[in-house]
């Protein structure tokens, strides 16, 4: 039978527990079991008997993992209101956050390149080389905004330790908006809106972010399971 501590660790990973938190939870339970075994051995049990008794007294590791996660969810607003934070907020908030970050990025670029001077901007819009540069800056600001919003949601989800189903939903919403939100730059005009033609490259941005964060998580989990690199 699988060791209860390994079962606890495995279930916590499945439930999306943030890794530093998981290390602490597992370490506490592991130390508790050690203390319990020492005291049972001191009472005259063999190590094997003490281990069996200690595991019984600690309780079912699956239930323990679920209770530990519940206590984690209850400790943050996002964890207590998962439907609002990871259901409604991405749907309603993605365009707003994207637009706010886009405006911030463009303002920063405008301040750095043209020193907030509208005339300089108008002159640049008439010059093909300068306009090409402007276009690159505008599209770059747009992509950066998508990266930051998707990354923000991804980090929020990881920190709150939500279930994978919520994570998939958040990722789906981020991808949907990235595919259909668009910006268009022409001399003296800047347009933003929703387009019916998906932009596949932009849509891949959330996929890349979620892929990278999940790969990093998997790598760290494997590292924890490896007895030569385990820190617990």
């Amino acid at each position, binding site marked *: 039978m699988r060791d209860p501590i390994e079962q606890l660790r495995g279930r916590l990973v499945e439930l999306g527990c943030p890794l530093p938190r998981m290390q*602490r*939870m597992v*370490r*506490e*339970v592991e*130390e*508790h079991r050690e*203390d*319990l075994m020492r005291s049972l051995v001191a009472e005259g049990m063999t190590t094997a008997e003490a281990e069996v008794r200690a595991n019984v*007294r*600690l*309780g*079912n*590791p699956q239930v*323990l993992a679920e*209770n*530990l996660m*519940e*206590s*984690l969810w*209850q*400790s*943050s607003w996002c964890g207590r209101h998962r439907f609002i934070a990871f259901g409604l907020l991405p749907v309603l908030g993605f365009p707003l956050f994207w637009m706010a970050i886009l405006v911030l990025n463009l303002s920063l670029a405008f301040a750095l390149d043209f020193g907030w001077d509208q005339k300089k901007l108008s002159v640049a819009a008439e010059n093909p080389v300068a306009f090409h540069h402007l276009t690159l800056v505008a599209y770059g600001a747009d992509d950066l905004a998508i990266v930051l919003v998707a990354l923000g949601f991804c980090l929020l989800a990881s920190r709150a330790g939500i279930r994978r189903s919520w994570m998939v939903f958040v990722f789906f919403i981020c991808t949907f908006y990235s595919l259909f939100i668009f910006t268009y730059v022409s001399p003296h005009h800047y347009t933003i809106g929703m387009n019916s033609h998906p932009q596949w490259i932009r849509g891949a941005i959330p996929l890349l972010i979620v892929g990278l964060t999940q790969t990093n998580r998997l790598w760290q989990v494997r590292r924890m399971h490896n007895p030569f690199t385990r820190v617990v």
Partner: protein
Amino acid sequence: MKKTNPSFLNGVPELLVLGLLARREMYGYQIVEEIRARSGGALSFGEGCIYPYLHHLEGEKCVSSRRMEIDGRSRHYYKLTNRGQKRLEELNSEWKRVTDGVALLMGEQYA
């Protein structure tokens, strides 16, 4: 609106844990052992349950925790915060109200 039917039994583990931590800093195993010893074995539960409680109380900022090494062993110690102290007073007065009520209802043998 004041609760007319308080969930006093749900608050018992919280009351016990906060009551013990009001005396000194302790780690999970110590808390479980202390509860068992002080209640003469009458109160015992799945020992792993203590950690969800402690983490919940920490999330509520009723207790704080730190890693400390004592006698060559490093453990996670919990201590009561000011908010925890207030919560303990609330739970204590609620518990007293309930036990007084039970004693009045059931007669002298429960007093």
